[in-house]
């Protein structure tokens, strides 16, 4: 079963009854499936619906029409309380602007995501930060961290509850080249561990790392391309390894 299953999903903003300003369709009849372990990149010009799609998958928004299911949960009909439960159990979010609590340390920002389950595990949070290379920055406030370090704290926070789906909105948008590289390596590692990633980006370098890229225009999927996996990824992904072998066996492909 696909982890993400969207069928003719539409998201409109504005009132149907308004004649002077007709409702805007941020998403217009999108159908999309994403398999578990897949890395999907969503690209497109501003206003194409990328962030709206991401918000919908995160349970921060609901479709106006169509059927949307993530990890088998039909998110269109969930109550606010159920959506909150969905967000804390199924998804991990990484934001372009990091959105760290400025008066909490790196460790406490990660523990904040644990506390949503009414418990905290300092050791687990410490380990999560060590895995993203921030073992020496546990007690630093966000103002004392570089952009890349902040984003890595976000990644640790997103992972701490072991979500099934990681959603990232322009994760390298505010980073310089060096930090961008660090974060992309991190995302690649996560993908290698089998996490499902959906990343919104303008950055073609991010797209090059993904399994699949879709292009949105005016709320619709204008392009959907399956990319060839990197060799190190192919070793861990049997299905893609088979495809790669088939591709290599056909002259001129």
């Amino acid at each position: 079963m696909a982890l993400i299953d969207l069928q003719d999903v539409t998201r409109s903003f504005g009132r149907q009854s308004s004649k002077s300003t007709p409702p805007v369709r941020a998403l217009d009849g999108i159908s999309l499936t994403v398999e578990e372990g897949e890395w999907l990149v969503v690209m497109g010009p501003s206003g194409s619906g990328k962030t709206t799609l991401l918000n919908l998958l995160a349970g921060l928004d609901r479709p106006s029409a169509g059927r949307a299911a993530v990890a088998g949960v039909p998110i269109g009909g969930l109550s606010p309380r159920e959506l909150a439960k969905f967000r804390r159990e199924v998804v991990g979010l990484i934001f372009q602007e990091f959105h760290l609590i400025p008066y909490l340390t790196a460790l406490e920002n990660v523990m904040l995501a644990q506390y949503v389950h009414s418990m905290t595990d300092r050791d687990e949070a410490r380990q999560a930060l060590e895995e993203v290379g921030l073992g020496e920055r546990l007690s630093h406030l966000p103002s004392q961290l570089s952009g890349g370090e902040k984003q890595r704290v976000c990644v640790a926070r997103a992972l701490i509850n072991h979500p099934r789906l990681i959603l990232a909105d322009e994760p390298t948008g505010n980073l310089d080249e060096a930090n961008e590289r660090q974060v992309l390596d991190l995302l690649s590692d996560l993908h290698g561990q089998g996490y499902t990633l959906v990343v919104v980006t303008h950055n073609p370098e991010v797209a090059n790392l993904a399994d699949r890229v879709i292009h949105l225009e005016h709320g619709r999927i204008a392009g959907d391309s399956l990319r060839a996996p990197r060799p190190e990824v192919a070793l861990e992904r049997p299905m893609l390894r088979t495809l790669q072998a088939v591709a290599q066996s056909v002259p001129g492909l």
Partner: protein
Amino acid sequence: MIARLLFGSFRRRLRHLALIAIATTVAAGTVAATAGLGARLEAGVQGVLHAAGPNLVVRPQVGGPDRLPAAALVRVRTTPGVEVAAAVAERPAGETGEPPVVAVSAGFFDLHPDWEVDGRLPQAGEALAGDLVAERSAEGAAPGGALRGLRIVGRLTTGGELDRALVTRWEGPAASAAASDGTAASDGTAASGGTAAAVGTVASAGATASGDGAGRLIDRIDRIDRIDRIEVRAEPAQVEQVAAALESRIAGAEARPLARVTETDARLTRNLQALMAGAGAICLLLALVTVASATLALLEERRKEMALFLSLGYTGRWVQGIVTAELSLVGLAAVVVGSLAGEATAAVLAHQILGLPGSFAPSAAGVVAGLLVVVAVIAAAAALVRRRVERLDPALVLQGN
């Protein structure tokens, strides 16, 4: 984690929270001061009124019966607005020089607490001798002496008519014939009535208006067929109404207000209290406006933070709770500080300006006022928080909108 969130937020938002705290402190202080001052004023006035004695007297109407019915005392005591009532029955001076005897029911000395009594209150067979009686009777009227069969237990100085009388407390029914010549009996036997009868026997004195003594007094007084007047202290602001009510309840009686000046004082006091209550209410309203404004600014500053909480899976109710908790802690601390300052201010003002006792003990009114302020502030803040969180779209906010 909660403590860490609250502490961190306090430090970061000190300016907004300080504004809320100051507004709440001022409101609580003003409300507590006005309530405390009002309570002290009320207590002071009541004290003055108590010292002033009765403010109404109920007598037989001119041209009607020369006595009030025995049941009149009970009717007076049960009339709304009556605080204390005491019946007085008199026997005029005898032709052979016996001093007048005045018998009083329980409550009489409550109405006259400033009288000089250099002994104790009368018991069975005892009386207080007024100054003039004592002078005429020489040694017999001294405390410890006897006069006409009544043992004198104290010298009573009133500066008025009763100085010429023996004042006894009665319990039993109208006195027997033996008591008609001034000899007291304590067997509680009934008098036969008649203009020359003694007013009654002197039995045990009850200094308070509670317990068996008071009950017996009321029962016995009902059977006494002669009451010359009933002295009453009524609620000062209602003296006229109480007088009218008494006249309508007791046939053949007239009720005359005595101390109109106390009624004026009472009205002035009520007006002053109303003025202070109004000032306190205005101050509270201004504080609520300030608190609301500062809370809205605080919520605006916390939009992204609240949106982040929601995106992480915290419920709207949890977010409301943590923000409201922060505001509530500030409000509660501010109210405590403000109320204490207000009560202290009230005590100082009461003492320095109004000349009332300056007790620093918190008044019940001040405590209630403080609770009112904290409830109002927290309720207002909680309502604003709930409204903001319900309308918050985390997706839009986290996008930077």
